[in-house]
Protein backbone atom coordinates (compact mmCIF):
# COMPACT_ATOMS: atom_id res chain seq x y z
CA UNK A 1 0.00 0.00 0.00
CA UNK A 2 1.21 3.44 -0.97
CA UNK A 3 2.13 5.56 2.05
CA UNK A 4 -0.37 8.40 2.02
CA UNK A 5 1.89 10.90 3.74
CA UNK A 6 5.48 12.01 4.22
CA UNK A 7 7.04 14.22 6.87
CA UNK A 8 10.07 16.29 5.92
CA UNK A 9 12.06 19.09 7.47
CA UNK A 10 12.53 22.09 5.21
CA UNK A 11 14.54 25.02 6.65
CA UNK A 12 13.50 24.11 10.17
CA UNK A 13 9.82 24.05 9.23
CA UNK A 14 8.06 20.72 9.36
CA UNK A 15 6.31 19.86 6.11
CA UNK A 16 3.63 17.19 6.04
CA UNK A 17 2.84 16.07 2.52
CA UNK A 18 -0.42 14.17 2.15
CA UNK A 19 -0.79 12.20 -1.03
CA UNK A 20 -3.38 10.27 -2.92
CA UNK A 21 -6.49 9.38 -1.02
CA UNK A 22 -6.94 10.40 2.61
CA UNK A 23 -9.92 8.38 3.70
CA UNK A 24 -11.33 5.88 6.14
CA UNK A 25 -8.78 3.32 4.93
CA UNK A 26 -5.70 5.53 5.00
CA UNK A 27 -6.48 8.12 7.68
CA UNK A 28 -5.71 5.87 10.68
CA UNK A 29 -2.05 5.64 9.66
CA UNK A 30 -1.86 9.40 9.27
CA UNK A 31 -3.60 9.94 12.63
CA UNK A 32 -0.75 8.08 14.35
CA UNK A 33 1.78 10.29 12.63
CA UNK A 34 -0.24 13.35 13.61
CA UNK A 35 -0.08 12.36 17.28
CA UNK A 36 3.71 12.27 17.02
CA UNK A 37 3.84 15.62 15.25
CA UNK A 38 1.64 17.29 17.88
CA UNK A 39 3.77 15.83 20.66
CA UNK A 40 6.89 17.35 19.11
CA UNK A 41 5.25 20.81 19.42
CA UNK A 42 6.66 22.31 16.22
CA UNK A 43 6.69 26.12 15.97
CA UNK A 44 5.58 25.93 12.39
CA UNK A 45 4.17 23.23 10.17
CA UNK A 46 3.05 23.33 6.57
CA UNK A 47 0.65 20.75 5.20
CA UNK A 48 1.17 20.26 1.48
CA UNK A 49 -2.07 19.08 -0.11
CA UNK A 50 -1.04 19.55 -3.74
CA UNK A 51 -0.83 15.81 -4.35
CA UNK A 52 -3.95 14.96 -2.37
CA UNK A 53 -6.50 13.67 -4.85
CA UNK A 54 -9.41 12.46 -2.77
CA UNK A 55 -10.57 13.01 0.80
CA UNK A 56 -13.51 11.84 2.87
CA UNK A 57 -14.79 12.99 6.27
CA UNK A 58 -12.34 10.69 8.09
CA UNK A 59 -9.51 12.42 6.28
CA UNK A 60 -10.90 15.84 7.12
CA UNK A 61 -11.18 14.77 10.77
CA UNK A 62 -7.49 13.85 10.82
CA UNK A 63 -6.50 17.27 9.44
CA UNK A 64 -8.78 19.06 11.91
CA UNK A 65 -7.17 17.14 14.74
CA UNK A 66 -3.75 18.25 13.55
CA UNK A 67 -4.92 21.86 13.21
CA UNK A 68 -6.38 21.93 16.72
CA UNK A 69 -3.38 20.16 18.24
CA UNK A 70 -0.84 22.57 16.78
CA UNK A 71 -2.88 25.66 17.57
CA UNK A 72 -3.50 24.53 21.16
CA UNK A 73 0.24 24.62 21.87
CA UNK A 74 0.60 28.00 20.20
CA UNK A 75 2.16 26.68 17.01
CA UNK A 76 1.60 27.93 13.49
CA UNK A 77 0.00 25.72 10.85
CA UNK A 78 -0.59 26.44 7.20
CA UNK A 79 -2.22 24.40 4.47
CA UNK A 80 -1.30 24.74 0.82
CA UNK A 81 -2.09 23.40 -2.60
CA UNK A 82 -5.56 21.91 -2.10
CA UNK A 83 -7.41 21.36 -5.37
CA UNK A 84 -10.23 19.48 -7.07
CA UNK A 85 -12.30 17.16 -4.86
CA UNK A 86 -10.45 17.95 -1.59
CA UNK A 87 -10.85 21.70 -2.16
CA UNK A 88 -14.55 21.20 -2.86
CA UNK A 89 -14.91 19.35 0.45
CA UNK A 90 -13.00 21.99 2.45
CA UNK A 91 -15.17 24.71 0.91
CA UNK A 92 -18.34 22.83 1.62
CA UNK A 93 -17.33 22.44 5.26
CA UNK A 94 -16.27 26.11 5.34
CA UNK A 95 -12.80 25.03 6.30
CA UNK A 96 -11.15 26.82 3.40
CA UNK A 97 -11.18 30.01 5.48
CA UNK A 98 -10.02 28.41 8.69
CA UNK A 99 -7.32 26.51 6.85
CA UNK A 100 -6.57 29.64 4.80
CA UNK A 101 -6.79 27.82 1.50
Amino acid at each position, binding site marked *: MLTPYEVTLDNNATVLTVRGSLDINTAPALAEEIDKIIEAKPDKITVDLSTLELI*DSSGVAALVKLYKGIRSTGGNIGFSGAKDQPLAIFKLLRMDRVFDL
Partner: protein
Amino acid sequence: MHEKVPERIWLTIPGALRYRAVAVRVVAEAARLVSGSARHDEHDLDEHDVRDPFDTAVVSAFMEIFNNVAIHAYHRDEAGRIEITITTRERELIIELADTGTPFDPRKVPELPNATELDIAALPEGGMGLHIAKSMLDDVSYQPGPPNKWRLAKRLPPTTQIARS
Protein backbone atom coordinates in the same frame (compact mmCIF):
# COMPACT_ATOMS: atom_id res chain seq x y z
CA MET B 1 -31.24 15.42 -28.31
CA HIS B 2 -33.55 12.52 -27.52
CA GLU B 3 -33.89 11.32 -23.95
CA LYS B 4 -31.68 8.31 -23.49
CA VAL B 5 -33.27 5.13 -22.14
CA PRO B 6 -32.18 4.75 -18.50
CA GLU B 7 -29.44 2.19 -18.10
CA ARG B 8 -28.66 0.23 -14.97
CA ILE B 9 -25.64 -1.14 -13.23
CA TRP B 10 -26.11 -3.57 -10.38
CA LEU B 11 -23.22 -4.18 -8.01
CA THR B 12 -23.27 -6.34 -4.90
CA ILE B 13 -20.20 -6.47 -2.67
CA PRO B 14 -19.29 -7.35 0.90
CA GLY B 15 -20.18 -4.49 3.24
CA ALA B 16 -16.54 -4.01 4.16
CA LEU B 17 -14.37 -0.92 3.83
CA ARG B 18 -11.85 -3.00 1.87
CA TYR B 19 -14.40 -3.18 -0.92
CA ARG B 20 -15.11 0.50 -1.02
CA ALA B 21 -12.57 1.05 -3.79
CA VAL B 22 -14.47 -1.39 -6.00
CA ALA B 23 -17.71 0.50 -5.51
CA VAL B 24 -16.15 3.95 -5.82
CA ARG B 25 -14.62 2.97 -9.15
CA VAL B 26 -17.98 1.89 -10.51
CA VAL B 27 -19.74 4.99 -9.18
CA ALA B 28 -17.04 7.28 -10.60
CA GLU B 29 -17.33 5.66 -14.02
CA ALA B 30 -21.14 5.88 -13.94
CA ALA B 31 -20.87 9.56 -13.01
CA ARG B 32 -18.57 10.08 -15.97
CA LEU B 33 -21.04 8.36 -18.29
CA VAL B 34 -23.65 10.93 -17.23
CA SER B 35 -21.43 14.00 -17.04
CA GLY B 36 -19.76 13.21 -20.32
CA SER B 37 -16.31 13.14 -18.84
CA ALA B 38 -15.87 9.43 -19.59
CA ARG B 39 -12.74 8.72 -21.52
CA HIS B 40 -13.14 5.02 -22.24
CA ASP B 41 -9.67 4.70 -20.79
CA GLU B 42 -9.59 1.89 -18.31
CA HIS B 43 -6.03 2.67 -17.38
CA ASP B 44 -6.77 6.19 -16.47
CA LEU B 45 -9.20 6.23 -13.56
CA ASP B 46 -6.50 8.08 -11.83
CA GLU B 47 -5.44 11.31 -10.34
CA HIS B 48 -7.46 13.13 -12.99
CA ASP B 49 -10.31 10.98 -12.01
CA VAL B 50 -12.71 13.21 -10.16
CA ARG B 51 -12.11 16.68 -11.54
CA ASP B 52 -15.48 17.25 -13.09
CA PRO B 53 -17.73 18.90 -10.46
CA PHE B 54 -20.53 16.42 -11.09
CA ASP B 55 -18.21 13.44 -10.65
CA THR B 56 -16.66 15.07 -7.57
CA ALA B 57 -20.04 15.56 -5.92
CA VAL B 58 -21.23 12.04 -6.64
CA VAL B 59 -18.03 10.33 -5.50
CA SER B 60 -17.73 12.47 -2.35
CA ALA B 61 -21.29 11.73 -1.28
CA PHE B 62 -21.11 8.05 -2.11
CA MET B 63 -17.93 7.54 -0.10
CA GLU B 64 -19.62 8.93 3.02
CA ILE B 65 -22.77 6.86 2.65
CA PHE B 66 -20.72 3.72 2.00
CA ASN B 67 -18.50 4.36 5.02
CA ASN B 68 -21.58 4.81 7.19
CA VAL B 69 -23.14 1.54 6.08
CA ALA B 70 -19.92 -0.40 6.69
CA ILE B 71 -19.26 1.30 10.04
CA HIS B 72 -22.63 2.16 11.58
CA ALA B 73 -25.04 -0.32 10.00
CA TYR B 74 -22.62 -3.29 9.83
CA HIS B 75 -20.42 -2.26 12.80
CA ARG B 76 -17.30 -3.10 10.75
CA ASP B 77 -18.05 -6.81 11.10
CA GLU B 78 -17.84 -7.35 7.32
CA ALA B 79 -20.50 -10.04 7.43
CA GLY B 80 -23.22 -8.33 5.40
CA ARG B 81 -23.53 -7.25 1.81
CA ILE B 82 -24.25 -3.96 0.13
CA GLU B 83 -26.42 -3.99 -2.96
CA ILE B 84 -25.87 -0.99 -5.17
CA THR B 85 -28.10 -0.08 -8.10
CA ILE B 86 -26.97 2.74 -10.34
CA THR B 87 -29.31 4.25 -12.89
CA THR B 88 -27.83 6.52 -15.52
CA ARG B 89 -30.16 8.83 -17.41
CA GLU B 90 -29.37 11.49 -19.95
CA ARG B 91 -28.80 14.12 -17.26
CA GLU B 92 -29.25 12.31 -13.96
CA LEU B 93 -27.55 9.69 -11.87
CA ILE B 94 -29.42 7.74 -9.20
CA ILE B 95 -27.60 5.48 -6.77
CA GLU B 96 -29.55 3.15 -4.51
CA LEU B 97 -27.91 1.20 -1.71
CA ALA B 98 -29.48 -1.59 0.31
CA ASP B 99 -28.01 -3.18 3.40
CA THR B 100 -29.28 -5.59 6.04
CA GLY B 101 -27.51 -3.94 8.97
CA THR B 102 -28.83 -2.02 11.95
CA PRO B 103 -31.32 0.68 10.96
CA PHE B 104 -31.24 4.20 12.45
CA ASP B 105 -33.35 7.33 12.62
CA PRO B 106 -31.69 10.16 10.66
CA ARG B 107 -33.93 12.76 12.40
CA LYS B 108 -32.11 11.99 15.63
CA VAL B 109 -28.71 12.84 14.16
CA PRO B 110 -27.67 16.31 15.37
CA GLU B 111 -27.00 18.99 12.75
CA LEU B 112 -23.41 19.88 12.05
CA PRO B 113 -22.47 23.16 13.78
CA ASN B 114 -21.27 25.90 11.45
CA ALA B 115 -17.54 26.38 11.57
CA THR B 116 -16.52 30.01 11.73
CA GLU B 117 -13.14 31.47 11.13
CA LEU B 118 -12.19 32.16 14.68
CA ASP B 119 -13.90 29.40 16.53
CA ILE B 120 -11.34 26.64 16.22
CA ALA B 121 -12.88 24.48 18.89
CA ALA B 122 -16.09 24.30 16.88
CA LEU B 123 -14.34 22.58 13.97
CA PRO B 124 -15.94 19.16 13.78
CA GLU B 125 -13.96 15.94 13.98
CA GLY B 126 -16.93 13.78 13.12
CA GLY B 127 -20.54 13.94 12.05
CA MET B 128 -19.64 15.44 8.67
CA GLY B 129 -20.60 12.50 6.47
CA LEU B 130 -24.34 13.03 6.10
CA HIS B 131 -23.81 16.76 5.75
CA ILE B 132 -21.37 16.20 2.88
CA ALA B 133 -23.69 13.75 1.16
CA LYS B 134 -26.75 16.01 1.44
CA SER B 135 -24.88 19.11 0.32
CA MET B 136 -23.28 17.45 -2.67
CA LEU B 137 -26.44 15.85 -4.07
CA ASP B 138 -29.89 16.95 -5.13
CA ASP B 139 -31.59 14.25 -3.16
CA VAL B 140 -30.64 11.91 -0.31
CA SER B 141 -33.30 9.72 1.22
CA TYR B 142 -33.19 6.85 3.66
CA GLN B 143 -35.74 4.19 4.46
CA PRO B 144 -35.00 2.03 7.50
CA GLY B 145 -35.43 -1.69 7.02
CA PRO B 146 -34.16 -4.32 6.91
CA PRO B 147 -33.21 -3.92 4.23
CA ASN B 148 -32.22 -0.34 4.87
CA LYS B 149 -32.43 1.66 1.67
CA TRP B 150 -30.56 4.76 0.58
CA ARG B 151 -31.41 6.70 -2.55
CA LEU B 152 -28.94 9.29 -3.81
CA ALA B 153 -29.70 11.45 -6.83
CA LYS B 154 -27.75 14.08 -8.71
CA ARG B 155 -28.82 15.95 -11.83
CA LEU B 156 -26.56 17.69 -14.28
CA PRO B 157 -27.05 21.45 -14.05
CA PRO B 158 -28.74 22.83 -17.19
CA THR B 159 -25.67 24.82 -18.18
CA THR B 160 -23.36 21.83 -18.39
CA GLN B 161 -22.54 20.80 -21.92
CA ILE B 162 -22.80 17.13 -22.62
CA ALA B 163 -19.57 16.10 -24.26
CA ARG B 164 -20.71 12.86 -25.77
CA SER B 165 -23.25 12.67 -28.55
